[in-house]
């Protein structure tokens, strides 16, 4: 029997801390513990041996802190340190078996993997793929050296954990155990909670999950019920010897072995399948734990049957109370979104997402499918981009399996997938991906024969899908059935068939359900009347989640009313809050007195005062009066921006005002753009400008401010983001024939990359001017690194770009 067969069947013991023991044996502060695998292997083996002799079943190789980022500063490779660590642990196992005789069974060597110590993009430094590669290197070395399992521990970023788990599962057959470091409130440092990460890890198919480090056994007792309530996997608990205290500048853990063992025993009674220790625990701690717990029956591991999706920081459970899935990020029938996708205008997509979150969506559908675009790449960009700013779980919506896989792979959490159907081909292509990434899959009740007209027909397809999913190892809880909605304008029985199917799926088959609600009224006038009535009927018949437009007040009113009526809204608080939100909208701008007093301001004043709504309205009025778009821009908009820009340069006006005016001008442009595009025209571009925060630098607000202003003045901005490689900038300049580049750097340490970028542009004769800005730069510095222009503030770049434009150099 191997570890995978044992865990969850019988109580297993893990080992305890390593760091403190090494310090006692002379490891100095700042010294990397894993180097001792090569420098003092006998010390490491002795510690491994002591733990095994204390009775643990799983001994962790001394490999916790090894990774390619740390090895850069060391004289050893990842392969050497990891390989040596695993071999030492194996050798300790052999020697213990020799000592204790053949009777000694159940010893496993864990390849111990900790955090890379880097934050992942989009909010951090390294990409998901870079993290994956770093973990793969460790895992391949550990597997080669003979590890029995992979133990990913003391991690607190679910995205990093996902990269590690995928690296383990895609490159080895080893069992994977993940234990995370939570604080006393049950939160990871990155904000995730117990249920959200557990859902993700179960989906990814790990063998056991649990807690380690951070807390002592007493604190973990308080947290464990949260885990047992949602977890369908064996649980591993490795606490510290209490909370740390600092004595003489040294971190100490003060819970003694006996007391520790007693608490750990309770953890086993509460549902842990395996226990051990972490910081501050010693072989003596483990010996006492084994003595006190050996032979205990563990709580059987049961499937909790929960249908859950999660984002990086919270889980959303399907239950009696229906959920709202926002449908707006889908180009079907939305020309503006189509255009945004063609232009890679992610901002438009993010705004759609934020608006839906604001309006009460629980999950966002993300569909970026257009025939002429690279859908897998765009799906990846949309998923990671949305997750950088929105906390809601996402539903990856596509029929392109490559886009599906990309979306699921780079998703942070347990995703929802839309969709599979009863066709053989669909199930064969979708289920393996859904299984691998642990998605909750939307299943459409149709197959090769089309959409069945009868309830029985649809149920038959639903059953076929459930059975086929099972053959891929996908449980019912990870399937959400779509009974399908056809408009009643083409068949008066359509609603009845859908509702009855829904009822049977939910109440007889016991699966959760989803519907694209508004299809019901296609082709009819005043659709919202039918939609709301149908939505309520569907929820009453067992709809678990409605794919709707959360901006529709009528639909949301139906939703909140329904919850209040079925007793899922305590004291009707959500319903009342929704009503008040509606009222606030009716009283125009009650919260923004400035906008109100502005009334019917002229465009010029609206922009100078920075009032977006007034500027938008004023522009619409002007357009209705048949004022030419061009003269609005040149005679009102730009002069108003100039007034503000001048005020800013003369220090009569300040940055927030400058940006408020920029936002107001943007609102005005939106109105103009709409009119122009109706006439089949575009605003004339004054030229393309590439803008970027240089390699190594992560501060991009300054760059974004400059971009906003230049856009207003009619320049077409190609924004490459932050931490941009010089080669990428060069390529973009060459491919787009760009004549001006703006570079930003905040730190002295990153100005070197600014210099490198300029050098490269000159060497390759890119034929562009370079303007630079950023906190540490000065005119002198800019001259030194060969920039053409130093902009001391955001307006400086506008002046320079305008001057180049007027000289015909753009």
């Amino acid at each position, binding site marked *: 029997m191997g570890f995978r067969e044992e865990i969850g069947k019988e109580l297993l013991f893990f080992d305890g801390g390593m760091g403190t023991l090494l310090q006692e044996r002379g490891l100095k502060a700042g010294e990397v513990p894993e180097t001792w695998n090569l420098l003092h292997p006998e010390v490491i083996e002795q510690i491994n041996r002591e733990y095994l002799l204390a009775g643990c079943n799983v001994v962790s190789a001394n490999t916790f802190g090894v990774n390619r980022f740390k090895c850069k500063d060391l004289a050893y490779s990842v392969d050497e340190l990891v390989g040596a660590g695993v071999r030492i642990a194996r050798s300790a196992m052999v020697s213990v078996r020799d000592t204790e005789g053949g009777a000694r069974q159940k010893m496993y060597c864990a390849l111990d993997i900790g955090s890379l110590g880097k934050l992942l993009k989009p909010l951090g430094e390294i990409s998901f793929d870079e993290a994956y590669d770093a973990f793969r290197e460790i895992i391949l070395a550990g597997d080669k050296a003979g590890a029995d399992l992979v133990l990913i521990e003391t991690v607190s970023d679910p995205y990093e954990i996902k990269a590690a788990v995928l690296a383990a599962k895609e490159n080895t057959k080893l069992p994977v155990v993940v234990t995370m470091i939570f604080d006393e409130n049950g939160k990871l440092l990155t904000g995730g909670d117990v249920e959200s990460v557990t859902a993700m890890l179960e989906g990814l198919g790990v063998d056991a999950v649990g807690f380690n480090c951070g807390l002592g056994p007493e604190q973990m007792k308080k947290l464990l019920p949260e885990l047992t309530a949602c977890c369908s996997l064996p649980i591993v608990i490795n606490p510290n010897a209490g909370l740390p205290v600092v004595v003489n500048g040294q971190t100490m853990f003060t819970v003694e072995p006996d007391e520790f063992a007693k608490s750990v025993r309770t953890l086993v009674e509460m549902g842990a399948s395996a226990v051990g220790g972490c910081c501050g625990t010693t072989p003596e701690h483990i010996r006492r734990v084994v003595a006190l717990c050996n032979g205990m029956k563990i709580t059987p591991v049961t499937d909790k049957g929960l249908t859950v999706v999660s984002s990086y920081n919270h889980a959303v459970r399907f239950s009696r109370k229906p959920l709202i899935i926002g449908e707006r990020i889908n180009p079907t029938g939305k020309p503006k979104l189509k255009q945004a996708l063609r232009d890679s205008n992610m901002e438009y997509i993010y705004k759609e997402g934020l608006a839906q979150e604001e309006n009460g969506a629980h999950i966002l559908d993300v569909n970026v499918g257009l025939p002429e675009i690279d859908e897998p790449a765009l799906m990846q960009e949309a998923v990671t981009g949305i997750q950088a700013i929105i906390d809601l779980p996402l539903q990856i919506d596509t029929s392109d399996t490559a886009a599906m896989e990309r979306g699921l792979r780079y998703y942070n959490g347990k995703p929802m997938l839309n969709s599979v159907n009863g066709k053989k081909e669909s199930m064969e292509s979708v289920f393996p991906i859904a299984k691998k990434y642990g998605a909750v899959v939307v299943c459409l009740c149709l197959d090769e024969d089309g959409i069945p007209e009868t309830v029985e027909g649809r149920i038959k397809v639903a059953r076929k899908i459930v059975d086929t999913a099972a053959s891929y190892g996908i449980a019912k809880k990870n399937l959400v059935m779509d009974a399908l909605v056809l408009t009643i304008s083409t068949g008066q029985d359509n609603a009845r068939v859908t509702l009855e199917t829904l009822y049977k799926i939910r109440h007889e088959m016991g699966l959760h359900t989803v519907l694209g609600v508004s299809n019901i009224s296609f082709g009819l006038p005043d659709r919202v009347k039918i939609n709301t009535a149908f939505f309520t009927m569907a929820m009453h018949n067992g709809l678990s989640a409605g794919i709707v437009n959360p901006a529709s007040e009528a639909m949301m009113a139906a939703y909140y009313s329904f919850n209040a009526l079925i007793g899922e809204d305590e004291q009707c608080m959500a319903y009342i809050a929704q009503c008040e939100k509606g009222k606030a909208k009716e009283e125009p701008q009650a919260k923004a007195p400035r906008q109100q007093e502005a009334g019917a301001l002229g465009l010029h004043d609206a922009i100078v005062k920075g009032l977006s709504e007034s500027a938008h309205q004023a522009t619409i009025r002007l357009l209705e009066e048949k004022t030419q778009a061009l003269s609005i821009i040149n005679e009102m908009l730009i002069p108003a921006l100039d007034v503000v820009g001048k005020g800013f340069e003369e220090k009569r006006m*300040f940055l927030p005002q400058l940006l408020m005016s920029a936002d107001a001008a943007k609102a005005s442009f939106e109105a103009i753009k709409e009119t122009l595009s109706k006439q089949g025209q575009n605003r004339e571009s004054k030229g393309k400008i590439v803008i970027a925060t240089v390699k190594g630098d992560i501060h991009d607000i300054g760059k974004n401010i400059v971009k906003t202003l230049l856009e207003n003045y009619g320049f077409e901005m190609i924004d490459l983001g932050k931490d941009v490689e010089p080669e990428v900038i060069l390529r973009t300049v060459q491919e787009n024939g760009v004549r001006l580049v703006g570079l930003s750097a905040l730190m002295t340490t990153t100005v070197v990359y600014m210099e490198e970028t300029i050098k490269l542009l000159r060497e390759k004769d890119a034929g562009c001017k370079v303007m630079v800005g950023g906190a540490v730069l000065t005119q002198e510095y800019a001259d030194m690194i060969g920039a053409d222009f130093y902009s001391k503030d955001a307006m400086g770049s506008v002046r320079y770009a305008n001057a180049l434009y007027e000289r015909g150099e753009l």
Partner: protein
Amino acid sequence: MGLEQKDGMMERNDKELADAVSRNEIYRYLGYGTNAPDAAVCALVDEVLSELFGVIKPKSCYRIYDCRTDGEYVFVGDWKIKSANLAGNLAQCGTAALLAATLGLEADKLLQRYEVLNMAKASVVQACAAACIEAYCNLIQEDIRFDAQKQCGAPLFIRPRFSPGYGDLPLEIQREFFSVLDCTKRIGLTLTQNLLMYPTKSVTAFIGLTRNPENCHIEKCKRCGKTDCAFRVL
């Protein structure tokens, strides 16, 4: 030092932090100098601060060490650092702390969110978050002072925080700083290859503690009558 101190992962309640944030500093970050913003911008600052307090969970960790200097070198605990500027800052300090503090990922998320939605608001988030991390450090250094005072049995006064990268103190010591404090595991603070920090609204600093009140900038400000000074540190 024979002192027991809580391993600092101090979380502060919002009220305390809200009271500690300096509006003047926010206005200064926004480029106002000593000018007062108009009512609309003041209202925006209020709005952003309350949003910020709603999402951030600041965390910090620190260690207190014996400290001495010899003009060119600083000795903090077992650590010997070459920096005349830091030695100057810590000249009269028998005690010094290493502090790492962060507002956490949520501040970065909020900033990114408004860079999409509303650039003016984003600039205010940036300024408020910067003032917030400073205010948070001001609160934590009071804890540090309290701990250190208990140990040395005499009133101590705080010197201005001195961060890696200031003056002749090389940014490279960030690496050692991170390893001594174990910031990544304890408060989720990470260091990039170029020695910048993620989450971005974070501070690492040496904090000197002196017995001489004359040597303390806060004490100096307290005695100064110019209460509307933009650089007042109270």
